[in-house]
Each structure stands twice: as structure tokens, then as C-alpha cells.
């Protein structure tokens, strides 16, 4: 039987297990509930230090067989469905032990971080884990460290790293409840990435409505601009300009590049023929390209290359017959290698498909439709989002309709268009069939 009364925080099934478990099992589960993961040696040490408990022989196997514990590569973890309630119960029952346990876990992570790690990515990783544990010992320091982790992700793959940080923040929401603005930001980011658009607008709107001269505000302004661009281009442009200016003031390079890239795209949307909007877009995209080149993030650079090429191409086409065909050909010849480089440098299949589609459009419009459709068909072997697939299909259809395209090119364009159609339509049917058949 349990060594304490059943906490009110536990739902009934969990309370039933709690009541039936041995005291050391409950304490071990509580320690795992406040941890990310622990090896058996680490858990053994914590049981002794925090609770003065020496677990019995064979205890690790007993723990692995508990319904609230799971095993994985790095050791033992508490199930997500049990962790919040068990942690809350632990906190309510013994706040001092709860704080001491978090302080020990902070020390453990700092020891790991300092144990001869050479890569900056490792230091960043452990700093975020430290922030997780600080939530139970010093919530203000935790929030500040989480923010740094979010804003200073190492290397490529910024979105994945930011989502990981965000998932850690949201797991500590209860302990960070006094930091509502920061929690709104992280909730908003999570909703943004997972496509919960309305929730993201609301959460990020709370951050933007209380602007501060900090990097979190700059990120929120940029993301909110993306979320409102289809319904309110003026507001989106205003938000994006603010994000760019704020990022410049704060020397927040990565957000400056992302926001300026979005702003260039918004200016292109606003362009109706030659004029200030297009010139603005080209200038922004050009400046941004040189910034991104210095940063060393292949995906970010690829996206900036695509925007720059699109802006220059749109600028030239907007001039219509005023633009010399030979000059258009020369422009295409200068931009196509840029787009090819973008496709080769990034693992982001979405960026690859958009770059390939733009490249095909340029080649086709400079009377090289056969090469255009060949290159595009080759890029289409990659998986992509519905949005990217529709873009590929639109370009293929445009090539098919070009009067200068030969029969073989038209056939190839027709075939590619049909392949994309089949992918878009049958994929949905296949999905439904697979999901419902069993």
C-alpha cells in the first residue's frame, strides 16, 4: 500500500494504481514525473538523496513493468498522461522536496553539459534541459533560459528545434503560470506550426498587443503577419515591417532574414504592374540574400534564393514588351543556376519543389519548355505538401498550353499534370481507404 494518502490531484484510475503501489515505486514515479528521462543510476541517486529511500533488489525491472513508466533510449520516462498529475501531487504534498529535486536535476544537467562537450549544439541542448528543470526551482530564470533556447537554435532545422523547446515549455505550464505573456507566445508558436491557425492568431495577438523591445515580440509580429496575410495584406505588411525593424534594432539576424523574406513576398502580392511595390520587393530580397549567405543555414538561404529569383522575374515580366526578350533570356540564365543551387543545397523538399517550379516557369517562358518539363518531372519524385504539388501542376499545365511547346513536351506536361492530379486525388482516397478499411 501507498506510504501516503491518495492525492486529490490524481484521476481515479491513477489513484487506484497509486494506492496499490509500494512507497518507493510511488516516489520513483514522482521523480520521473518531473524529469525528462533518467537512467536507473540517476534515479537511484535521487531516491536516496531526496527521499532517503534505498530501492530493493531488482527494482529497475519492477519499475519497467509499472503502468505509468515507459522505457526508451535514454532510460526511464513517466507517461505523459500521468506525469502532470503525479508532478502536481508531489508539489502539493512536499513543496520543499519538490524544489530540492528540481535543483538536483538542474545540477545533473549542468554536469552533463560541462562534461567535455565540444559541440555548440550540445551546449544549447543541455541549456534547454536546464531551463526545463529550473521551472521547479526558479521560474523566472527558467522562462529567460527557454527564450534564449528558442531564439538561439544551432545550425539548420530551426523549426524542429524551436518546436522541441516549445514542447518543453508547454509541459511546464503549471509551474510557469505567472509568465502568461511568454506562455501565450509558446502556445501561439505551437499552434502556428501545427496548423491551428485561429488559436495561433489569438495567442500571438496577445503578445503583439503588448509589444516590448524584445526578440519574442519580433518573432510574434512576423508569425502573425504570415497568419493574417490572406485576409488583410495591409496589416500583414505593417506587422512584417515592424518585425524587420525590431529585429534590426536587436541584431536578431535569423528573424530579420525570415521576416524580410516574408515582407518581400507580401510586397510582390501588392504589386499590380511595374512600380514601387515590385522595386521594394526586389531591394528587400536582394539585401536579404546577402544576409542569408553569411548565415550558413542552407534551408533559409534556399528560401531567400527563391524569393529573390521570384522578385526579379516578376519585375522583368511586369515590364511586359518593354523588356527585351534577349534580356529576359539573360535574366533567366542568371537566375536558373541560383534555383538549381537552392534545390541541391537543402533537404527541405517543400523548398525544392517551389524552386523547381519557378525554374521551370522561367525556362518555359524563354522557350525552353522541353528542358523545363524534364527538370520539373525529375523534382516531382520528392514528396511535398498539397500547396507545393498544386504549384507544380499549375506550371505543368502552363507549359502544356504554350503555343511554342512541341508535341513531346506537351505530352510530357500532360503526363506530369496527370501524375500530380493522381497524387492529389488518389492520395486522399487511399488515405481514407486505409484508415477505414480495417
Amino acid at each position, binding site marked *: 500500500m501507498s506510504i501516503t494518502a491518495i492525492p486529490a490531484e490524481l*484521476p*481515479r*484510475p*491513477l489513484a*487506484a*494504481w497509486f*494506492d*496499490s*503501489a509500494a512507497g518507493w515505486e510511488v516516489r520513483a514515479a514522482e521523480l520521473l514525473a518531473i524529469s*525528462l*528521462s533518467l537512467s536507473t543510476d540517476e534515479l537511484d541517486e535521487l531516491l536516496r538523496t531526496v527521499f532517503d529511500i534505498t530501492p530493493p533488489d531488482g527494482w529497475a525491472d519492477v519499475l*519497467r*513493468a*509499472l*503502468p*505509468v513508466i*515507459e*522505457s*526508451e*533510449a*535514454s532510460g526511464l*520516462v513517466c*507517461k*505523459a*498522461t*500521468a506525469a502532470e498529475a503525479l508532478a502536481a501531487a508531489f508539489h502539493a504534498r512536499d513543496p520543499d522536496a519538490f524544489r530540492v529535486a528540481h535543483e538536483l536535476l538542474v545540477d545533473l544537467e549542468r554536469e552533463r553539459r560541462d562534461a567535455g*562537450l*565540444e*559541440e555548440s*549544439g*550540445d551546449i544549447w*541542448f543541455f541549456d534547454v534541459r536546464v531551463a526545463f528543470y529550473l521551472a521547479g526551482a526558479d521560474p523566472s530564470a527558467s522562462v529567460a533560459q527557454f527564450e534564449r533556447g528558442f531564439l538561439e537554435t*544551432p*545550425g*539548420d*532545422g530551426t*523549426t*524542429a*528545434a524551436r518546436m*522541441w523547446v*516549445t*514542447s518543453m515549455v508547454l509541459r511546464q505550464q503549471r509551474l510557469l503560470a505567472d509568465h502568461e505573456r511568454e506562455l501565450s507566445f509558446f502556445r501561439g508558436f505551437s499552434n502556428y506550426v*501545427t*496548423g491551428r491557425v485561429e488559436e495561433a492568431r489569438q495567442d500571438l495577438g496577445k503578445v503583439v498587443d503588448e509589444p516590448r523591445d524584445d526578440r519574442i515580440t519580433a518573432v510574434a509580429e512576423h508569425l502573425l503577419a504570415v497568419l493574417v496575410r490572406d485576409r488583410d495584406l495591409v496589416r500583414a505588411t505593417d506587422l512584417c515591417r515592424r518585425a524587420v525593424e525590431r529585429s534590426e534594432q536587436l541584431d536578431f539576424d535569423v528573424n530579420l532574414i525570415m521576416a524580410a523574406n516574408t515582407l518581400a513576398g507580401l510586397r510582390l502580392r501588392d504589386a499590380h504592374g511595374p512600380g514601387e511595390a515590385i522595386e521594394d520587393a526586389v531591394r528587400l530580397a536582394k539585401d536579404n540574400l546577402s544576409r542569408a549567405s553569411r548565415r550558413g543555414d542552407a534551408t533559409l538561404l534556399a528560401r531567400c534564393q527563391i524569393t529573390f529569383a521570384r522578385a526579379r522575374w516578376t519585375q522583368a515580366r511586369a515590364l511586359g514588351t518593354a523588356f527585351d526578350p534577349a534580356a529576359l533570356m539573360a535574366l533567366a540564365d542568371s537566375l536558373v543556376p541560383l534555383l538549381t543551387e537552392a534545390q541541391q543545397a537543402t*533537404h*527541405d*523538399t*517543400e523548398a525544392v519543389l517551389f524552386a523547381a517550379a519557378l525554374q521551370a516557369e522561367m525556362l518555359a517562358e524563354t522557350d525552353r519548355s522541353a528542358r523545363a518539363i524534364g527538370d520539373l518531372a525529375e523534382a516531382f519524385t*520528392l*514528396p*511535398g*505538401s498539397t500547396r507545393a504539388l498544386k504549384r507544380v501542376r499549375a506550371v505543368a499545365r502552363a507549359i502544356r498550353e504554350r503555343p511554342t511547346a512541341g508535341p513531346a513536351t506537351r505530352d510530357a506536361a500532360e503526363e506530369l499534370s496527370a501524375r500530380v492530379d493522381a497524387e492529389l486525388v488518389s*492520395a*486522399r482516397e*487511399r*488515405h481514407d481507404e*486505409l*484508415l477505414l*478499411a*480495417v
Partner: protein
Amino acid sequence: VTLPVEWWMRVDREGELEIARSALDAGGLWVLLAEDGQGGSELARLIAEAAEERGRTCCVGRDTQTVDTLRGALLHAWRQLIAPGPREFGMSDLMSREPVGLIAQHLRDELDGQAERAVLVLEQVDHARGIDGAGLAALDQLARGEQTVIVITANHRGTPWRRCDTLRKLRALGRFRMEHVLAAAEAAPTWPADADAQREMVQGLRSTLGQGTIQPDDAFSALAALA
């Protein structure tokens, strides 16, 4: 490295296990959609047991502590094949810059070199976010040929699984019904022989788990308490 199956894990999963047995014969990619609390890890253990009953090696990969949990699960599985033992933290594991496709290729090479066809079960691969195109392509690469890859997800909203060429079946894990929980309870070490005591135990379970369908994790906790 197979974790033991406990008696309380055997609740209403025959449909999924039948799919797993089919997967052993057919190869390809099989996806079981499970959110938190839906018994994904218990099912992984049951699948590993079923595979081993058929004489197949089963390797379960799972690592939710990494930034990219698909990469973490693949590396976990790969490490078990080449050097079983606890993971050490380090850059190569946590933030490896090797493309996920290359890790899948390493893993496939190891699996191809096994004396018997192995089964790979990957858990919680989309723990923090949906899997992107590169991740799906890596799973496709792994599941081509005779390999069997069974993925048990963490979050089934964000990943376009239908984009995988090798995908054989998707199935969402459901909640349990009370009769299935009660059937499992009869295997409890403390299940009484006396009819009155049985009725009392059943009433206790009904009281704990309430009306309607039951979240698998709730059922597991309530059943384990009987032991």
C-alpha cells in the same frame, strides 16, 4: 532488446496484432496512429512478442528526448542492432547533422545483414511535430524490399502518411470497452475464485473507470492496481 509483456497490457488489441502479423509476411510500412494515453508503448511490446513468436527478430526504437524523434528512434534501433546497451548523450545522437535518409540507409544495411528478416517497430516518431518529406522518404527507403517497418505515432494530425509509397495500412488505435477490460482482469494474479469476490472486483473496476469507452492508459492503471 525486448521489454516484457505484462498481463494487464493484453486488452482488446487483437485487431492491431492481426495487422502486425500480416505486416510480418507482407513487408512495407504499417502505421498505427496513437496519441498520448492510447497504449502505444504497450502495443509495441505486444507486437514485439508476436514477432518473436513467429521466429522474427524485433527491434523497437524510441527516443523522445531528441529534437527530431524520428531520427532518435532510428538511431536507437540502429544502436541496438550494432551494440546493445544504454545510450550516451552526445552530439552524434542528439543533433546529428547526418540526413535522416542516411541514418535509414545505415539501419537498412544492418537489417539486410541479419540472418533472419527483422521487424522494426518505431515509437513516438512525431512526438514534437509532424514528420516532413525527408523523414517520410527515409521511412519509404527503409520499408522497401522485404523489410517490415511498423510505426506507432505520437500525434496523428501533422504527418501526411499517404505520401509514402510503401504504406500498406493506417489504423487509428481506439479506446477500450468495459467488457474487454473485464476480460483482461480475469488474468490478474489476485483474480478471486469466489463469485462474490469477483463481483466486488468488477464493481471496483466499473467505479474506477466510469461509464462509456475507456482511455487505454486508464485501463492499464486500474488493472495493474489489481495486482
